[in-house]
């Protein structure tokens, strides 16, 4: 029955490997889950789930899979006391018990158990019918029955399904939007080391130096090698237009994260308002005194730059497709915004668009027309841990 749990986990996107599954079986073999669903919940979580981001998913799957099983009612207190006071095992005929129980199924046992719970008013030990200890009925503590279930005993203080149902780990889900630290982590992935083939040989290779010196009869012979450094150059364009204000905190943390990531070979950050046209801004306030010509950027930043655009891509359709569509009366744009985006994409092959609007609103929510237009040119990702990771992966793959 548990194998289905394994496949359900995999089907729901938790990549449990066979090794881990075998580890869990081994753990159960060793009796680590003490026949309690609660213990099983923690045991399988510790072994199968390797990130707190997946805990919530696990909780959901766990409740889905086990919801039928915990229909057994909470036991009355005095019954639990009897059960925990274990009486010695009565003599029994093993064959007789085995024969009597060979057709038992879990559902049957559950049903019988519920009936007994209704009838049973006092303590019974060593028998074959009631819930008790040291006997041979299908339920009880510390008795013999080939198919029976243990009631009480160790474990079981917090019921597993209740714990799973609480979903304490919802905050860690990877598809939730992120904070600065998570952004920083994501950006660390963005690195591409120079190969050993290019760059000057200017670092001492100690091992080889010694080896060569020894081979050289003790006369010093120095060996140099090429250092490995990160060669990623990054250009980030932030939308600081009006429709972005609900996402200010998030964009602010993204900005902080980018500027704190000091492992890039070069990092340039510019701002734009809704869409980019002839000029880009060098400050988030987008004032005309601090601008830089987009043409200059295209000319001076070579095509090795990776480009990340952060913006909601939502605007009036005219702002994107008409010359003069930008809403700045004194500075009509000669070319429509979309042409600029196309030019960027043509120059910078590695370009992605991070959108704080969640993906399900891209076809219908506010600004969906422009989102669709832009999405056709630049690969677009939702601004979450997962989205950013996917986007960054896209920036790194060789085409």
């Amino acid at each position, binding site marked *: 029955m548990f194998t289905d749990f394994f496949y359900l986990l995999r089907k729901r996107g938790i*990549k449990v*490997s066979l*090794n*881990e599954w075998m*580890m869990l079986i*081994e*753990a159960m073999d*060793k009796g*680590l889950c003490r026949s309690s669903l609660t*213990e099983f919940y*923690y*045991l399988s*979580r*510790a*072994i199968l*789930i*390797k*990130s*707190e981001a997946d*805990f919530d998913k696990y909780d959901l799957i766990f409740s889905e899979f086990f919801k039928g099983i915990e229909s057994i009612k909470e036991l009355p207190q005095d019954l639990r006391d009897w059960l925990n006071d274990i009486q010695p095992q009565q003599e029994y005929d093993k064959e007789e018990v085995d024969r009597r129980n060979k057709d038992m199924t879990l559902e049957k046992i559950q049903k019988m158990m519920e009936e007994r719970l209704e009838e049973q008013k006092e303590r019974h030990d060593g028998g074959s019918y009631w819930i008790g200890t040291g006997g041979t009925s299908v339920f009880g503590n510390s008795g013999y029955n080939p198919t029976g279930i243990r009631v009480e005993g160790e474990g079981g*203080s917090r019921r597993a399904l209740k714990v799973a149902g609480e979903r*304490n*780990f919802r905050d*860690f889900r990877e598809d939730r939007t992120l904070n*600065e630290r998570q952004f920083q*982590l994501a950006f*660390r*992935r963005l690195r591409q080391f120079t190969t050993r083939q290019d760059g000057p040989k200017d670092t001492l290779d*100690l*091992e080889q130096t*010694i080896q060569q*010196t*020894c081979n050289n009869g*003790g006369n010093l012979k120095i060996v140099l090698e090429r250092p490995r450094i990160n060669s990623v150059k990054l250009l980030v364009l932030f939308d600081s237009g009006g429709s972005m204000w*609900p996402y200010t*905190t998030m964009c602010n943390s993204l900005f902080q994260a980018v500027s704190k990531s000091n492992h890039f070979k070069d990092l340039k950050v510019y701002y734009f308002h809704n869409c980019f046209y002839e000029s880009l801004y060098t400050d988030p306030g987008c004032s005309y005194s601090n601008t830089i010509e987009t043409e200059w950027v295209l000319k001076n930043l070579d095509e090795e730059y990776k480009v990340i655009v952060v913006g909601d891509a939502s605007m009036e359709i005219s702002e994107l497709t008409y010359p003069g569509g930008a809403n700045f009366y004194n500075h009509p744009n000669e070319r429509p915004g979309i042409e600029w985006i196309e030019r960027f994409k043509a120059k910078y092959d590695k370009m992605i668009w991070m959108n704080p609007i969640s993906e399900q609103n891209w076809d219908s929510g506010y600004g969906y027309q422009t989102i669709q237009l832009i999405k056709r040119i630049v690969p677009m990702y939702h601004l979450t841990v997962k989205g950013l990771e996917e986007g960054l992966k896209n920036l790194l793959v060789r085409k």
Partner: protein
Amino acid sequence: MSEFKGSNNYVVSEELMRSVNIAIALQKPLLIKGEPGTGKTMLAQAIQEALGKELIIWNIKSTTKAQDGLYVYDTVQRLYDSQFGNEGVDDIGKYIKLGKLGEAFDQDKQVILLIDEIDKADLEFPNDLLWELDKMEFYIPETQQTVKAKIRPIVIITSNAEKELPDAFLRRCIFHYISFPDKEMMEEIVKVHFDNLDEKLLEQVLETFYAIRNIKEVHKKPSTSEVIDWIQALEIAGIDPEKIYKEVPFAGVLLKKTEDLAIVEKAKEKKFQVTRW
């Protein structure tokens, strides 16, 4: 089988205890993740105390290589010695020094090995240790020796989640996430560190502490060790508990960044009302 039940000066949640015991029973490394200040490193010490075993700590830095943990072949020393024709240059074994991992394997008794902050090292670091942690052995080509653990050590690995760990590595570990202690748990933790602490003071402190942690704008959220320092400061100065929530004295102990102090200053005036957009 040895079982871990917490120690005198380390408050351990039931869930964590479970994970520790699972890892011990299955003889797999236990990977502990959690916010800074949730007592990840302390855990290994607590296990050491509770089980009475020796603790070997391997602190990982950004420059640490997997090889460092196994053994170091001191080629430079050997080169020097060879120049002066010292005795024993032929014996390579003399120049092999076991690292922390090697040391843990080489013990006669079961030890606890703490690999602290594994995420500090290079991305490839955990992958380089897969075989060694799985089989608890490694081979030294220079001396053609195999170092093999006589008794598998209890391995505790901590991570601040600065880097994502590789899947192949994760598959071999038992995973536990220490969430930040809630108020009741924190009360217990504080009481372990202070005898007869004024209840009123404690209540006020924790209320203020969680109020500050709830402010979204605070960059570096105060953690357990800071709250303990803070209580100490408040006790020594003999601050009236009534004033704590209103005035947040010695806020500098809790917050290490000037901008955070300014934010708390502002929030304090609004009595920690949560502001929303």
